């Protein structure tokens, strides 16, 4: 057993971190929120160049994957920088197409996803899932409805999320691409990949929220001392670190299980999703509280992280659904 990222994986994380820091994601998020997807697509291209999307695509379709561990590494970094766009959905769509067993469909879309040309969205339609994320910005929107999958024709009006960078909409119309039990099975697999990527993204969000709050608490003074010297502040930030540190190995183990096609991977992913999203939400609340009124403003970039953390909590598996799955026989 070597339950540690290897040097190459760490270098990959490090280089993504550097690239995204240089890209100045807060401005990209604000543009995306305002409907201007161009800066987001520029970042998307850079991510593709770094091989992020190829990790979800098999080699026969110009990919490098599927490599779930590396995917979680990438999503943690993308979460750390709050990158906007249908990142999870694109990777989940790739997992769906890969698993579907329809060579034509795979060949039609997967190379584009791997190269970064194609941003996709995916909606596994149900009462609790009526929307496709960022459908307006996606080149292909797949909708699984019962045992059929269709390629949506258009998206309904954007329903702005509390996270301004998330722009869900109801996918409309479209032709059926495939139908049958393999659609259902591929959709289940895609949901797992999406939940795992969301968990990793949440971990990254939480890491940034904690780091920024620690930094702020060291600088901001009140009553003549740094607020980071108040024991209440220290202890609550310590609790955030604990929550994040114990979420991380759950994500990694879930990725390892998914890579190994371990039948327990669904449970492992659910556990990781709960832990990472609860940790991110708690860290967001803490970050907001200790930044005071400043944290409550839209103009502080931190708000982009705070607002995303709550939205991810229910995306691709509510806490209740995940907990039920952890205990499923």
């Amino acid at each position, binding site marked *: 057993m070597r339950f540690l990222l290897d040097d190459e994986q760490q270098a990959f994380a490090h280089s993504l971190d550097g690239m995204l820091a240089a890209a100045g994601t807060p401005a990209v998020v604000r543009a995306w929120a305002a409907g201007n997807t161009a800066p987001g697509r520029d970042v998307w291209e850079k991510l593709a160049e770094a091989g992020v999307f190829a990790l979800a695509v098999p080699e026969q379709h110009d990919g490098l994957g599927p490599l779930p561990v590396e995917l979680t590494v990438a999503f943690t970094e993308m979460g750390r920088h709050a990158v906007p766009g249908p990142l999870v959905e694109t990777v989940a769509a790739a997992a769906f197409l890969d698993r579907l067993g329809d060579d034509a469909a795979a060949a039609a879309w997967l190379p584009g996803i791997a190269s970064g040309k194609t941003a996709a969205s995916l909606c596994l339609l149900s009462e609790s899932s*009526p929307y496709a994320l960022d459908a307006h910005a996606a080149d292909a929107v797949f909708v699984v409805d019962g045992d059929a999958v269709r390629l949506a024709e258009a998206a309904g009006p954007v329903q*702005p999320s*509390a996270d301004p960078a998330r722009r869900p909409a109801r996918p409309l119309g479209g032709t059926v691409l495939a139908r049958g039990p393999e659609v259902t099975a591929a959709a289940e697999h895609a949901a797992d990949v999406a939940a795992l990527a969301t968990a990793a993204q949440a971990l990254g969000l939480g890491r940034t929220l904690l780091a920024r709050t620690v930094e702020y608490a060291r600088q901001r003074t009140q009553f003549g001392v740094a607020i980071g*010297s*108040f024991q209440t502040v220290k202890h609550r930030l310590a609790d955030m670190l604990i929550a994040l540190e114990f979420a991380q190995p759950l994500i990694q183990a879930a990725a390892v299980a998914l890579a190994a096609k371990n039948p327990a991977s669904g449970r492992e992913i659910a556990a990781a999703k709960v832990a990472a999203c609860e940790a991110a939400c708690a860290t967001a609340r803490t970050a907001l509280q200790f930044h005071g009124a400043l944290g409550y403003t*839209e103009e502080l970039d931190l708000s982009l992280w705070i607002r995303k953390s709550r939205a991810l909590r*229910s995306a691709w598996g509510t806490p*209740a659904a995940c907990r039920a799955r952890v205990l499923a026989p």
Partner: protein
Amino acid sequence: MDLDFTAEEEAFRAEARAWLATRVPAAPLPSLETAEGFAAHREWERTLSADRWSVVSWPEKYGGRGASILEWLIFEEEYYAAGAPGRVSQNGIHLLAPTLLEHGTAQQLARILPPMASGEVIWAQAWSEPESGSDLASLRSTAVRTDGGWLLSGQKTWSSRAAFADRAFGLFRSDRGDTNADKPHRGLTYLMFPLDADGVSVRPIGRLDGKPAFAELFLDNVFVPDRDVIGEPGQGWRVAMSTAGNERGLTLRSPGRFTAAAHRLTALWRSAADPSDTALRDRVADAVIGARAYQLFTYAGASRIAAGGAIGGESSLNKVFWSELDIALHETALDLLGPYGELSDTAGEAPAQGSWAEGYTFSLAGPIYAGTNEIQRDIIAERLLGLPKGRR
């Protein structure tokens, strides 16, 4: 010990309820943190005021009904139960007016209160400064004596409502000589000023959802006549604090808000939730219990005041309790709403026309403003439990 309302109080409740039933807008007004919503809420204040419902606890001569605290609580219960709009005048009514009623001159009262009651003049608070959040004693903005008044300079921030309001009130350092490290509260003066005066710049600040719920104020030699000083110059701190411990401790957030919200949450749970999800049920129950506890705690406080007692450190208990209740209640609602819980209040498909999303955003500020909950807990520990001060 009883919870009985008198026949008069019940009649008052019936009158309020009947009035609200016909006047409350069927659809929520636009968010009061937008220009359009602000105007709509100002218009609503006028409607309230026309029938003397805007400031029921004030004396009749200023537009009120001379209502007792209990009647005020009854009004608030009916008000929020009816789903009536948020109160755009609340900074003036809850923060400025009690101070004026205690320290203002007859001339000030007659001049300032009626237009506040009617919504003609809407007030913003100007307490905080960039370097002093909960630490008001470190204020730096100045009031310099000039002929017939004062010249205000400096910067205020987190001034709620100031993006659209007419006037503001706050504390200014008027006597630098009297200040020293031991007595930073000295030498402050309580002043009122117009937001459109020469020398005032207002920079709106967006809250989490982008709406300009507050603003930064830049003041550069803004002239304020003597008649707009409240109380004695140099005594501003004492003037401001003297009303912090009275009914205001009870009335900052009226229980009616939370009993109504808990009621709406319960209705949402009955209509939308999986009844076998007892985890959600428990959270709904806790919101109902919390709202009831807050209502009863307030009744007890009102009874104590009626019996000649005072409200002191309890207002810190209050603050922590309602602010945490408010967040928990709204988080439960968002979870009940499933995929719609994520939507912004501006989304076409936002449930209840966005009021849950708006309420959640609003609730998140609760533990921060009006003295952070950390400060409130320090106060509770030191003043109510007698624990030693320590350096925190």
